[in-house]
């Protein structure tokens, strides 16, 4: 049992385990861990990519970074890591799974999410603050957010331009799979898509970094909307427990 303080300040005793997977070259793992564990008081554990994930885990996060140095293509080698088999199993069971930045790229490369991520249209790495717009507020990571709510948040990627062909785009819309879009042109993503989910809605991938925007000290604009991404997760898995 772990004592937790939930998002409205109540002290509750629950065993909620959130796993943060580390691949060789992950570099936002510690940031994500800090936010989950120190800011939102979740029982968080690291999982090295060669290790398996326990069946009773409540949520899995694939953090950002440069797994395998982005060799071949961002995320493609990590998508073949042993841990991905377990991630796929958990995804099927409906466990909430979030991939941020490189984590999103890995989810796409492992076919847990559709589409591809291409080089930004600036052809450069881009690190800047932007506004996200919530397009689906039913996922485990957005259910505390309002539809069309704006989220000030930073991006930091070189290959973050989401692309889907017209058929896929239709499917995404049909199944309400577009979770976030940019408020304006940022990197040339089709329909300015910044984050999507699978058909079931439990696997979400996003290019921007919510873990960099959830604390007041780090967010020059407004940290509340990003916090709601984590509070949505707490709501989801807390409710389950």
């Amino acid at each position, binding site marked *: 049992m772990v004592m937790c303080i939930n998002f409205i300040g109540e002290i509750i005793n629950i065993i909620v385990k959130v796993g943060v997977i580390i691949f*060789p070259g992950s570099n936002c793992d510690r940031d994500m861990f800090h936010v989950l564990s120190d800011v939102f008081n979740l029982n968080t554990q690291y999982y090295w990519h060669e290790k398996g994930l326990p069946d009773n885990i409540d949520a899995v996060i694939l953090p950002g970074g*440069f797994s395998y140095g982005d060799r071949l293509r961002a995320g493609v080698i990590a998508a073949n890591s042993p841990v991905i088999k377990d991630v796929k199993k958990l995804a099927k069971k409906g466990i909430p799974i979030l991939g941020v930045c490189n984590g999103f790229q890995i989810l796409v490369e492992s076919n847990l999410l559709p589409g591809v991520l291409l080089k930004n249209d600036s052809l*450069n790495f881009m690190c800047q603050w932007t506004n996200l717009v919530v397009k689906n507020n039913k996922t485990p990571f957005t259910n505390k957010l309002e539809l069309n709510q704006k989220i000030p948040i930073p991006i930091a990627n070189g290959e973050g331009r989401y692309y889907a062909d017209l058929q896929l785009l239709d499917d995404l819309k049909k199944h309400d799979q577009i979770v976030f879009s940019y408020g304006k042109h940022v990197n040339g993503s089709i329909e300015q898509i910044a984050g999507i989910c699978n058909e079931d809605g439990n696997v979400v991938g996003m290019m921007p970094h919510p873990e960099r925007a959830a604390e007041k000290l780090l967010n020059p604009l407004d940290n509340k909307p990003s916090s709601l991404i984590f509070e949505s997760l707490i709501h989801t898995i807390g409710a389950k427990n």
Partner: protein
Amino acid sequence: MSLQNHEIKHIKDIIKRKLTDTELQILAAEWSEHCSYKSSKKHLKMLPITGRSVIHEKGYDSGVLDVGDGYVVTVHIESHNHPSAVEPFGGAATGVGGVIRDILSTGTRPIAILDGLRFGDIENDAHARWLFKNVVSGIANYGNCLGIPTIGGEVEFDDCYKGYALVDVAAIGFGKKDKLIKNHASEGDLVVLVGGPTGRDGIGGSQFASDLLEDENRSAVQIPDPFIEKLIIETILEARNEKCINAMKDLGGGGLSCAISETAESLGVGIELDVDSVHTRESGLLPYEIMISESQERMLVITSKQKLPKLKQICDKFNVICSVIGHVKNDKMMHVKKSKKTIALLPAEFVARGPLINRKKTKPKYLLQIKRENKAKKNLDYSKIIQELLSCPNIASKHWVFQQYDHEVGIRTVVKPGFDASVLRLDNGKFLSAKIDGNPKHCYIDPRQGAIGCFEEACRNVVCTGANPIGMVDHLQFGNPEDPEIFWTFMESLEGLTDYAKFLRVPCVGGKVSFYNETDFGPIKPTPLIGVLGLVDHTPFLSSTPNDGDYLIIIGNTKNELGGSEYFEYIDKFIGGICPTVDFKNSKINMLTTLSLIKNKLVKSVHDCSKGGFSIAVSELSIFGQIGCDIDIEKIPCEKDLSSEQILFSESHSRYLLVIDKKNILNVERFLSKKKISFAVLGKFSGDQINIKRKSQNLVKLRIDLAQKRYFNGLGDLLKHG
């Protein structure tokens, strides 16, 4: 090989036998200017290196500062100029890698990078643009992949860097004091090489960097692999946690030769190693190539026999290769073998301490001829001049650069790049402010005052974030030290920095000297680069932009100091005039006053006056606040009879612009009057136009949207089309 006659004589005198080829190669690498500091070492001793928070430990390649609560900050600065001028992408990337490993070698995690970049005239020189773009990509590629934020720095362009590039990288580390590696070794300990394989890249790199850049020696340039570096960082930090590391050193200039001899020398032991045990990238490497290769991403670790299995296990986890290449002896010798055959056997101290040189110095002739007055014909349309300055590459916003760097990773960056200093949060609730500054234009006209000015500017920037300067690093970059005129400029800069450091009681905790920065076009201007770290004990000062009705106050004196200013050089194309000088006493008082205003929450934001002078500093406040201002410069504290152009564009030091909420204005005025420092209330922020007048004479009328366009698009527009 670059051994000189007196060095060959020194070898004969001490060793008294004919050296093997490998021995000669080892000495040539280790005794290069780059590794041995033979021209500068004697003189560098003048810098104050001790202080309340400085921690000294043998064998450290980076400075260590105690920041309280059991935590330390480490800092180091390096350059990679020659390689970057030949192969900008790889040269800059490996420059980042090298300094990161210096931070790592103390057992601290690297948490930030700052870089100072200098190129030729990018407006007119396509080669300079090519170098610039690729250096930025190289740094971005490497730093981003490591997950270490590049939180700030500076970029400057000057014709003196034509065909060349200065790429300076400073790195900051953070860790627990009790986890610092206390370098030690005893007989029988094992010498382990951890990291990437040794190859033919970077052969003779340190000698290449110790000569004029006339030929492009590509094999001397190292090949970067940030992914391996990232794995090494995690491997080493885990090995540190498991206490597997007795001593550690990174492999940089001079490769194994340097790492082995310096480690043995600093620990007072001997090291015997076998080149056949070194893992290599290709077969058939000659022993001397293995000894002097500067292949990147390698660390030398000394561990005990008992800890070796654990170290190997950690390396295996991260798929990092580690080879036991030798062991520690107590004979103080550096003993290199190829299986059973000895190929080098020299006293470690002899290798590590190359003979030093007394260089001659004479005041350069150009300084006697330099024009003190600018009699150029002038167009004094100040609004137009300010617009031109706002978009000039040295002043325009550098977001094109820093947005290619991940400056947020690590979630410490509280004050982000783009204004004055950047600020990081530390785990003990304190905040670290960091800035690097250089100014070759000032240093050319007066190497001593110019250097002091760079130091003060870096301090000012740190002070603007509410932080007390606690330590500095210097990187002294000059041309060929064999030229007495160049050596004079080096000595002047060094003496100036020493004086100011002693006065401020800010210790020098690390640094580097880089000579031979010359091409066929001649030597660079003297380019000392100063990095300053500051500490904020409690709440960080998060400045807010000016609002309608806020007041503008200036602290500090404006003087007739247009020499080396952007105004003279960019607008008038005039090199000369009087370089700004720092009045030590005023400098300190203004610093302390600004800090106490911040501490007492009386100011909304503070901005220092530097490049472009007062007019640019106030324009920047308006640009960031998206609000105009009405300013009257008549009352500005200044020397007698200053012309408006001098007031607007002089780059005099020790000046701060304060934005004050109207409810605090009386308090602030009272406070400043009591301190008896020079200040004036110059006007208010309002409207959508920058209006500057002198009594009834209108000097500047500039719409904010136009100013913003100039400032934010200036650099990007230049680079759009190649």
